[in-house]
Every structure is written in C-alpha cells, then in structure tokens.
C-alpha cells in the first residue's frame, strides 16, 4: 500500500517534469543473520540531481526505513484485587516491525512539512499508524494504545527518529541507519523523500532484505518443519549432557 503511494509519487514527480530528482542507493540490499549476528548498519546515500530552479527555496531530504508489517497486541494493566493484571487490549494490525526516520541535521522534521503532509506519508514517530485496529470501532479509543506501542518499540530501539541525514555537499547526502539485532527478519523498505517548500517533489523506494542464513536459518526451518524431531534432538542433547555431567561428578569422588 505504502509502496504504491511512493510509486505514484514517483510517477507524479516524473510527469510533473520537475527539474530536480532524488537518486539514492544502499550500501547493501541484504542483511544476513548468522550465528554471531549482533545487529549491523546500512548506509543510505544519494544525490539531488538536476538544476535547482529556485535555489532560495528550502529543500530537505528525509530517509525512512520500515520493517515488515506485523500485528501488535497492546495490553493495559489495571489493578484487580490488589494485583496488576492485563485488562484492556487492542490489536494494531499492520504496524511496521521496525521504523527509523532520519531528517537533515539542519532542520527538525516538524519544520520541514506540515503535520498533514507528514501524517500522509507516516513520517515521524507520532505518525506511525496501524493499517487496521481490531478491538474497537472507535479509533480514538485506540490512540493511547498506539502511543504506548510506539513508546515501547522506541525503548527497545526498534523505533527511532533522528536528525542524522548529513549533506556532504550541496546535493550529496548520506545517512547511516542501524539495524539492531532484535529487528525481525523480512522485507524492509528504505524510502528517501525530497521536500521542497513543504511538499514532496521526489521520492525513491528501495527494498532491503533481512534474513537468517546458514545454520540459523536451517534451525529455524527445522523447528517449524519437523517440530517433533527438533524437540527430540533438544531432549537427546540435554540427556547426553546430563549423562556427561554425571560421569564428571563421579570422577570427582
């Protein structure tokens, strides 16, 4: 859905024959999770191409990376008989599992465009919204749950908003985006937006794949494809080490 919006934007940008276009790329289009994986970072770089028709007008580049869509269940505790127990819950369908936004160092995000524009593209932590809400017909009731979900993800380092876009020259930019170890596997999209005078004039979307590799992938597959054999091997391993341990204990005596 969001990708479609971006594509439409691109077409709109092209058909309007703007003098300036955004070109961006990634340092790698695939992140492989192996046994020593502890998170990584990718570099998004790009350039604003073409002549600047109105050099005086402010222009900004916003880069955002979104993880695969996932459902989040948010629960609110309430005191029941003296104990804090989960009571109300709300399911936020289709939230990005990972979200990282970078705007230029020179200007905060809310100065770049109006709240309405930012909300349309879901730019900024405040505007991360679920595709659908399950649990209520009143969207305003889900609002505290949405805010709590964003705060929780931010605490876990999975949602962030920074001002890290660095301009190397008048038209060349670069930003390093962390992919923490807890970021889930799946297809990510990296989007770069060029803003002029508060409106998006050019945008580009690039996919990024994060996936397990080698042994990790095989183990994960194993656990899901042949769960009985998988469980059995866990049991046999445990029994083997228990037996080994009893041998060692006996030797001590």
């Amino acid at each position, binding site marked *: 859905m969001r990708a479609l919006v971006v594509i439409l934007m691109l077409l709109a940008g092209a058909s309007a024959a703007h003098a300036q276009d955004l070109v961006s790329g990634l340092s790698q289009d695939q992140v492989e999770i192996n046994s020593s994986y502890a998170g990584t970072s990718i570099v998004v770089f790009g350039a604003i191409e073409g002549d600047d028709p109105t050099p005086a007008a402010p222009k900004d580049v916003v880069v955002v990376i979104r993880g695969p869509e996932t459902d989040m269940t948010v629960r609110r505790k309430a005191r029941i008989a003296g104990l804090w*127990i989960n009571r109300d819950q709300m399911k936020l369908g289709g939230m990005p599992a990972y979200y990282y936004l970078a705007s230029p160092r020179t200007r905060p995000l809310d100065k770049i465009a109006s709240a309405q524009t930012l909300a349309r593209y879901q730019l900024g932590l405040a505007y991360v919204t679920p595709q659908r809400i399950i649990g209520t017909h009143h969207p305003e009731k889900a609002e505290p749950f949405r805010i709590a979900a964003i705060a929780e993800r931010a605490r876990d380092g999975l949602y962030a908003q920074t001002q890290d876009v660095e301009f190397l020259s008048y038209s060349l930019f670069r930003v390093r985006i962390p992919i923490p170890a807890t970021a889930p596997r799946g297809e990510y999209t990296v989007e770069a937006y060029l803003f002029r005078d508060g409106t998006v004039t050019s945008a580009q979307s690039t996919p990024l794949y994060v996936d397990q590799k080698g042994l990790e992938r095989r183990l994960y597959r194993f656990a899901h494809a042949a769960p009985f054999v998988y469980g059995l091997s866990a049991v046999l391993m445990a029994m083997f080490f228990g037996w080994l341990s009893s041998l060692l204990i006996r030797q001590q005596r």
Partner: protein
Amino acid sequence: MEIYLPVAEMSVHWLTILGMAAAVGYLSGLLGVGGAFLLTPLLIFYGIPPNVAVATTASHLTASSMSGAIAQWRRRAVDLKMAGVMLCGGFLGSAVGVYLFGLLHRIGQTEIVVSVGYVILLGTVGGLMLDESVRTLRAAQLGTPPPLRMRVHHNWIHGLPFKLRFKQSRLYISLVPPVALGFFVGILSSLLGVGGGFVLVPAMIYLLRMPTGVVIGTSLTQIVCVTAATTLLQSVSNFSVDIVLAAILVVGGAIGAQFGVRMASRLRGEHLRLLLALLVLAVAARLFIGLVTTPDDLYSLAVGS
C-alpha cells in the same frame, strides 16, 4: 561474544547466559534442586520472551535431573514402578499444561498466571522449608533430638481403590494419589517451567509415605521424563524451544553443578535446606512485589499474531 538465537529471534551475550546457567547449576548441585524456579525468571529478566524461556528451561531440567537420576539408578534407589505410575499422570498433566500455556499466551495472561503461580508455590514451599530447617537447627543447638515430623496416622489415602503393591517402596496403596501427583507436577512443569522436585519430594514422603531412600531417585526419574515430554510438546505445539539457548543452558548448568556438588559435601544438610528456603522465599518476595506495586508502564506489547 554475541550469539543469535534462531527461535527467540534475538542475539544474546552467550557468556552471560552461560554464567547464569552455571550459577543456577551450582545451586542445583549444592542444594539438590533443578533450579528452574531461578533460571526461568532470570532468562525473562534478561529479555528472552517468556514463552521461549519457559519452554527452553525444560531441557535444562532434563539435563540436570538426568545427571542426578543416573547417580541414583546406580545406587538402585529408584522405584521404577512408582515412577511409571506417576508418569501416566505426568504425561497427561504436561499435555494439559502445554495446552493451557498456549491458551494463556494467546489471551495475554501468561505473565500473571506464571507470577501468581510462582508466588503461591515458592511462598508455600519456602515457608515450610524455612520452618523445618530452623526447628532442626534450634533443636541441634539445644542438644535435644529433632522434633518428630507430623504424622498422619493411616490417612484417607489408604481408603482409595485400585490398590497396587510397590515392592521397592514397601507400599500397598491406591494408584490414584501417585497418578494425581504426577498430573499436578506435569502441569507445573509445562506451565511454570519448573521441574516440581520441591513439590514431589515432600508429597512423596508425607502423602504417599515412601521411604526417604527412594524418594529422590524416583522424583528425579519422573522429572527427566516429564521435562523431556514437555520439551517435545512445546516444540510441536508452540514452536517455542530454542535449541541454541538450550545448549548454552545445558552446558552452563553441567559446569556449575560440578562445583555445587563439591561444595555440598562440605556443608551440613540443615544449613543447605535453610539456604534453599531463604533463596526460594526471596524469589517469591521479588515476584510478589512486582505484582502489587504500580508498574512504571501500564502498557505491554506483544508482537506477532
């Protein structure tokens, strides 16, 4: 020093986890308990998802009980018939527990059930153990013989049907209590991720009246089988066993147990029991505080469907 856990889908400092498992293994070697009641909360505190922590601790228990059980088998201190009868209930209990665990996970009440379950279980057992060990110590100080344990003369258990003879335990009792006991411990094992040794041992002594000599071996045998079944069932129905995490736990536990066993021979039994009682009560108190104090964040988040 990071290692990626494929099922938990996160990376951990493997040395930290190994250290935790070794510390718990040390205590279990020292005190003769499985130690899961410490390990499961520790793992959750570290950030391992609770469902993975509970399910994976079962394999740690299989390993630590296995090494104890082998030692008891060699001494022929296992009543295999009794273990078999209890296992009939144990497997069923384990299946019910795994089912309940999946259900609670879906409705978001795992945390509260696990915490309340721990507080009740650990509070009761810890309190009883503390009482017993303090009394024994005080009696030893005064030079009087330790007070006789409460004796229930010919209790209701002997009135139940389906009696069976257990040669090794020198018992002729109904099948119902051991099966029920096994069932209950099976539920505990899969729901709370504990082995249940500290419930089994007193129940076998006081309720079933088994001779103390065969109690430990029989309970360990039972725990090996029930935790093995739990691991299998959790793998099949909840996909929550992480084999990489299990390997770290099992190895750490085995290392720690070596030192614990060595240390145990230098300490007196009453002191060990007092230590265990205090430890159990401390964990219960910590969990209880967590339940009643206002949390910093009222909201919690579960990702995935």
